[in-house]
């Protein structure tokens, strides 16, 4: 029991402290002091068994000691905020912690006056109010969304970080249960003309963010989503309506959606030409690289956590693939020499994060831990060397290579990929 209680207290100290270095120091010095004294009853002031609790309320709140936070980057119109992956359990991201990426701030949109215009190569150009869209048959699905720039800070051979949190590294990843109307239903309503092959999706923000999307995807599993984790989608996620393209890069899943134009060619918007394209070796750039290949990342233990003692620890993390379902996650606790199958928490859903766990007895010696995912197309998450070889070292998006965390003999955890390259 003592082994269990100590780490839990340590983890809390880490979560609630903004300076990782300070937190790590606290944990190390307090590790022994926090050891459970099983003979003394815990002190709670006031004693909750002697004081009646508060009444019911219309809106709940988090426990005072549990205040996970996004990592908000530069206070700018085009900016991002990352989900606190180290604080999250299971696969669902609380809606208020879903990562953010905006190109011109978050618009204030009144649902009652929001409209979706669908036109172009259709039999009947139509405009829909939200009350119209919500009346169509709905579906709910769990899908991840990931920014295709996620993980880019761990790709440069010369600049491999060590003191980086998993939130800062991979926090542009979130999972929600999304509710909406299949885009195919709306396209059926307007009647797509033969010869159409693309559409243009346009947002109602101050960048009028727009992306071209192939019609095949629109007719397959694209959603017009207005619900997120059981309630209306958050303004940061596109309220009142966003395009969902399951398994594809986040940028193409246009938020605050107000217009869809059915076309026979891509529009070549700025976001699909000068941005969100992948420079490759040999002087070319890959365009319309929507699909997110299989990936995994360990969320515990990660920097700045310090393992206070050797013994049993559960390594855990997330795995996901835009191609389909995760079929296997392997964990190595010896720098990649040997791999063991991690336990996959059910349900494992297509185009959704999967939670993996691996019980590990740390012997107190320095080592590097890694994870690698395999999906149902047979794709195995590559090493960074494999990605360098395939795409060059100058590419700008789609960084799905294996991550590594170094555990020092004093228990301090740092990002460890630099030790393997």
């Amino acid at each position, binding site marked *: 029991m003592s082994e269990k209680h100590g780490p839990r207290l340590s983890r809390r100290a880490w979560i609630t402290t903004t300076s990782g270095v300070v937190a790590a120091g606290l944990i190390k010095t307090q590790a022994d002091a926090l050891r459970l004294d099983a003979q003394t009853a815990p002190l709670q002031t006031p004693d909750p068994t002697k004081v009646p609790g508060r009444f019911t309320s219309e809106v709940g709140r988090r426990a005072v000691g549990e205040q996970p936070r996004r990592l908000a980057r530069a206070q700018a119109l085009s900016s991002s905020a990352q989900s606190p992956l180290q604080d999250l359990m299971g696969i669902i991201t609380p809606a208020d912690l879903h990562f953010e990426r905006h190109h011109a701030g978050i618009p204030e949109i009144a649902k009652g006056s929001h409209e979706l215009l669908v036109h172009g190569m259709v039999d009947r150009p139509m*405009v829909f109010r939200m009350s119209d869209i919500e009346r169509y048959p709905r579906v709910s699905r769990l899908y991840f969304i990931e920014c295709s720039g996620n993980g880019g800070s761990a790709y440069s051979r010369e600049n491999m970080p060590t003191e980086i949190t998993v939130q800062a590294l991979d926090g542009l990843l979130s999972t929600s249960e999304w509710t909406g109307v299949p885009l195919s239903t709306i396209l059926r*309503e307007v009647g797509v003309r033969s010869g159409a092959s693309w559409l243009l999706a346009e947002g109602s923000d101050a960048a009028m963010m727009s992306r071209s999307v192939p019609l095949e995807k629109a007719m397959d599993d694209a959603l017009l989503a207005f619900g997120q984790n059981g309630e209306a989608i958050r303004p940061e996620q596109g309220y009142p309506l966003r395009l969902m393209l399951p398994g594809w890069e986040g940028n193409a899943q246009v938020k605050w959606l107000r217009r869809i134009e059915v076309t*026979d060619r891509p*529009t070549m918007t700025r976001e699909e030409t000068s941005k969100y394209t992948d420079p490759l070796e040999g002087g070319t750039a890959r365009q319309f690289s929507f*699909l997110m290949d299989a990936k995994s990342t360990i969320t515990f233990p990660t920097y700045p956590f310090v393992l206070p003692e050797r013994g049993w620890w559960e390594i855990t993390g997330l795995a996901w693939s835009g191609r389909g379902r995760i079929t296997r996650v392997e964990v190595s606790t010896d720098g990649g020499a040997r791999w063991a199958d991690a336990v996959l928490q059910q349900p494992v859903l297509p185009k959704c994060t999967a939670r993996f766990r691996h019980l590990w007895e740390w012997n107190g010696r320095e080592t590097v831990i890694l994870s690698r995912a395999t999906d149902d197309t047979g794709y195995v998450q590559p090493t960074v060397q494999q990605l360098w070889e395939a*795409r060059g070292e100058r590419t700008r998006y789609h960084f799905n290579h294996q991550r590594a965390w170094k555990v020092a003999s004093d228990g301090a955890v740092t990002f460890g990929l630099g030790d393997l390259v």
Partner: protein
Amino acid sequence: MRPTAAAVTLAASWMLVGCAGPADAPGTPADESFADIAYALPEQAPRRFGFGAEASAARVARWDTDVKPDGEGLPAGKGTVAEGEVVFMTYCVACHGPTGTEGPNDVLVGSDPWEAWPGSVTVGGYWPYATTLYDYISRAMPQLTPGVLTPNQTYAVIAYILHRNGVVAADAEMDAQTLPAVIMPARDRFVVDDRQGGSQIR
């Protein structure tokens, strides 16, 4: 046309991905509950529900402001490099710098990013279509007052930016005919996603 060819290639690559399918044995309880990615309408669904309203041509035109690579959607108007310099120094200089290279926001002027990586991804070095400038500027620029530029001002500032990048001459004038005719230096740099699915790392 190139975009059409690209679309065909892209469609073919998806079919490969789509055919891969789940490896799990079908018929397990998990599959019955969760494998249904594609959405089937209920059997009794009508051919059309009739929700929403038909949009008039005027209603469509009010929002249909994007510009395609062949120039479709470009409005009437024109602007010269000299006129564009005035627009740039009025509306753009604060974020992009006096020569389009100083920032603090995106560097607009430069040549080949491939030699100086991780150099700046500039209009001259990385933008494949000149029409994208019109599409983007008219929808999103200037950042604090998007949409404030007139078509003439927009054509002019595009002419200036293209000239600064060495793409058009100092006496160039941009309009709905000349802009789509501009061949950008990075035009042939771009290849449609050629990942083939399966175990290949690409």
